[in-house]
């Protein structure tokens, strides 16, 4: 759908008489009118303060625009919300559930989609027409799983490395180089615990680089798993004793790792957000001497989604929030490194010039990657790889 078409649809929604009936045919205006006055419980990982602040801003916006109260339920682990939905449904609660919207992707999305517990809504959102589904295929294929409208993208994620520039003038650009760097700088690198998505992504990045045959990664992990991961484990077994705390303890999350870099406990951290360095320097969470870099081969990229459980209490209001997240205004704020620094999911060419102007060139210091230095986005393997990698890693580390 092009922008004029979108305009026609919005116009049609405006001129249509509001329908009192809860019919599906009353369009977006009907959705918005049913959304008004409702409260949306958005279950979203609460470990990142800037994301929390962004979500609070979204709350103010949807309250002003649509009369929706947004409640951010801060999760330690996204799986908590998934489990809640599954538990409610298995206890027979088919509506009025606790979870209206979840920030998720990967195995959590697959678990709910496979169980048939998600509402199909994303392709009906007016702003979905602005999403760059071709240039950013991760917006419609999550970890090789077709999204099919069961979740709406709201931010892009790319694995980037951030180094303390004064101590790492020449950062390692591939996994063998990282290993030899770690050998020369014992205890100065680590990765988040693999239960955390960023820790798992680090392993997937290494897997992608080291696997003898990458094509198996796109399929569910089966008998090919052991052969594919063997080089990864021999590399990792060499790396692990060289890590921070001899690889016996791992930071819980990306922000925990950022604390370590800021405190000088480590020299290189990971982030899923290309704008992280700028945003964190601005917020005083990292020193101005940090520098971003990516592996030469490219880095794992994916999209973050919001999904609405079938038993949500306020599904229409959740749709309105999801649609607002896709608005040029929200996307521009998310991409602004002073706020979030998360790349937009939109295709800027589909925006009006005024909307495009919101995505001005952000202040970009020496800590950030030049726009053309981000390199290619590597595809996520099938979710089962993440699940099995996590299990196998826990077995090795706990042993």
């Amino acid at each position, binding site marked *: 759908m092009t922008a004029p078409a979108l305009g026609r649809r919005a116009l049609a929604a405006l001129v249509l008489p509001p329908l009192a009936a809860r019919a599906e045919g009353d369009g977006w205006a009907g959705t918005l009118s049913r959304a008004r006055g409702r409260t949306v419980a958005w279950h979203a990982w609460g470990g990142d303060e800037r994301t929390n602040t962004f979500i609070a801003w979204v709350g103010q916006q949807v309250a002003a625009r649509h009369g929706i109260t947004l409640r951010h339920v801060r999760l330690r682990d996204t799986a908590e919300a998934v489990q809640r939905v599954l538990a409610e449904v298995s206890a027979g609660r088919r509506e009025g559930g606790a979870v209206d919207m979840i920030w998720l992707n990967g195995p959590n999305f697959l678990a709910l989609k496979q169980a048939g517990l998600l509402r199909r809504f994303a392709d009906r959102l007016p702003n979905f027409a602005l999403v760059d589904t071709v240039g950013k295929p991760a917006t419609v294929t999550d970890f090789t799983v077709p999204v099919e409208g069961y979740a709406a993208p709201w931010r892009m994620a790319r694995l980037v490395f951030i180094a303390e520039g004064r101590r790492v003038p020449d950062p390692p650009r591939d996994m063998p180089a990282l290993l030899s760097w770690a050998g020369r700088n014992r205890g100065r690198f680590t990765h988040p615990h693999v239960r955390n998505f960023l820790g798992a992504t680090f392993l997937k990045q290494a897997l992608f680089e080291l696997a003898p045959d990458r094509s198996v990664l796109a399929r569910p992990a089966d008998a090919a798993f052991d052969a594919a991961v063997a080089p990864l484990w021999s590399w990792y077994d060499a790396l692990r004793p060289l890590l921070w705390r001899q690889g016996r303890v791992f930071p819980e999350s990306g922000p925990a790792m950022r604390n370590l870099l800021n*405190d*000088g406990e480590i020299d290189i951290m990971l982030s899923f957000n290309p704008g992280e360095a700028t945003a964190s320097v601005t917020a005083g969470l990292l020193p101005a001497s940090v520098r971003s870099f990516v592996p030469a081969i490219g880095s794992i990229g994916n999209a973050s989604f919001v999904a609405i459980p079938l038993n949500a209490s306020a599904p229409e209001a959740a749709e309105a929030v999801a649609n607002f997240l896709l608005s040029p205004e929200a996307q521009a704020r998310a991409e602004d490194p002073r706020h979030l620094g998360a790349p937009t999911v939109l295709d800027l060419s589909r925006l009006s010039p005024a909307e495009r102007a919101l995505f001005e060139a952000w202040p970009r210091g020496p800590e950030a990657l030049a726009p053309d230095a981000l390199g290619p986005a590597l595809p996520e393997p099938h979710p089962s790889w993440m699940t099995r990698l996590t299990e196998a890693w826990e077995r090795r580390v706990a042993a």
Partner: protein
Amino acid sequence: MGTPRRRLSAALPALAAAGAIALPVLGGLVGTLLPAFGVLPAIGAEAPSLEQWRRLFAEPGIGRAALLSLSTGLAATALSLLSVALFCAAAHGSRGFARVQALALPVLATPHAALAIGLLFLIAPSGLLLRLLSPWATGFDLPPDIATVNDGLGLALLLGLVVKETPYLLLMTLAALNQVPAAQLLAVATSLGQPRPVAWLKAVFPLVYRQIRLPVFAVLAYSVGTVDVALILGPSAPPTLAPLLLRWATSPDLSLLLPASAGALLLLGVALAAAGVWIAGERAAATVGRAWAAGGRGIGAAAIRAGAALLPLSLLLAYCALAAVALWSVAGPWRFPDALPERLQGGTWAAQAPALAGPAVNSLVVALVATGIALVLAVAALEARARHGPAALPWLLRLSALPLLLPQAGFLLGLQAALLALGLEGGVAAVALAHLVFVMPYVLLSLSDAYAALDPRLPRVAACLGASPARVFLAVKLPLLLRPLLVAAAVGIAVSIAQYLPTLLAGGGRLATLTTEAVTLAAGGDRRVLGVVAVAQAAIPLLAFAAALLLPAAVWRRRAGLRA
């Protein structure tokens, strides 16, 4: 005690109080037991099986996790008790003694999570202690690569538990000291030539210990089953048993509820084993102690005096931890090894205030509801006993200790399932109900001492003057009990604010309180924000205790005689 009806009305308050405690615990235990043996119809598991036990024991590191729970639990209890005993032995009766008692109360009131976060800020390799000492004393320009927190042996967890539980045992000991003839015993023992600290340990401690045995076992069960302190300070690969279970219980894979329940049963077993080891230790200590006491020689005074420093040291750590969270909450940029932030700022408070208002209100509402119900039930039960004799309250006190003697995860997992099945889970009511299980015993214990200590002559005199039981209660007992009632309320609020697992499980993750926010952020959030949340969390019980201690003074200005 005449008719059955009269007996029923006498027993009713006790039954209500007992029900508030026992039903959730017993329901929770059943809700844990059935899935532990494969029965959880909600997820389609209907035939009993042992498969989940195989899954449980196949978990990498499960043995070590169980061992860690056992060892940190036993060590934390032993160290806390030891530091209290040595301190009391050396300092009982001195002027510093009363002062330390006053210093212990705020630490007791501080929620576990806030204190653990403070310790994290203090003792981490990049923490305040090393910042103060670096680089001038240590030579560190960068934090050393030493696991001073989240260490594999659980030493940081142990420290956190000791710092938190020592004040509790100290205050319990002080209460017990009022119930034993300590002065006479000391006089006799010192007249027999024993140095004062030795005399205290030989003659007074055995009697005191008998009085505080229940709190000691409560500390043991709590330490074995702690979740929030373990998440913040404990090891991660593997963690202790309780956080490991929580991970399964909140996994998207519902079938993991079965091994989680089996694990909860294992945790109960570990707690039981810890109690067994402790009881064996008690026997051994009694034998050795009796020989020591009978030996008559007054050796050991110097060692006791040295060990007496443990408790003030642990209090000092607690205060430094609180100072660390307060400092971080107003810190600007603050990099290692700077001893102080580059500048102070109120911006973090201002920025977080809107987001924290909701959780703060939730914390308060839950605490007030749970404490209010607990106070009413406890006073009713104790008043019934006072009027109708002990028959009205035969087993209530013993039963009320039940939830304190079990590791929380042991029955809360099952309670969550039960609440869910009843459609009750998720709201303020469910969380307050779950909190009541833990608030009720402390309120009851705290009030029953005060009721027992009530001078029986005063109500008797009032009754002789023709006052009805209701009038005696309202005009004589309540004013006499004002201070204990307020303290019990503050205890209830402090207990409620500190609860993490009951909030998480009964609230279905939906009810955000300051405690759940603090534990969530402790996983690596911005320390300044974490500082704000921890200070806010600690402020509620501290203010409650301050009010409980200051209000009676204001009310009693005209009743100076009641102070005695």
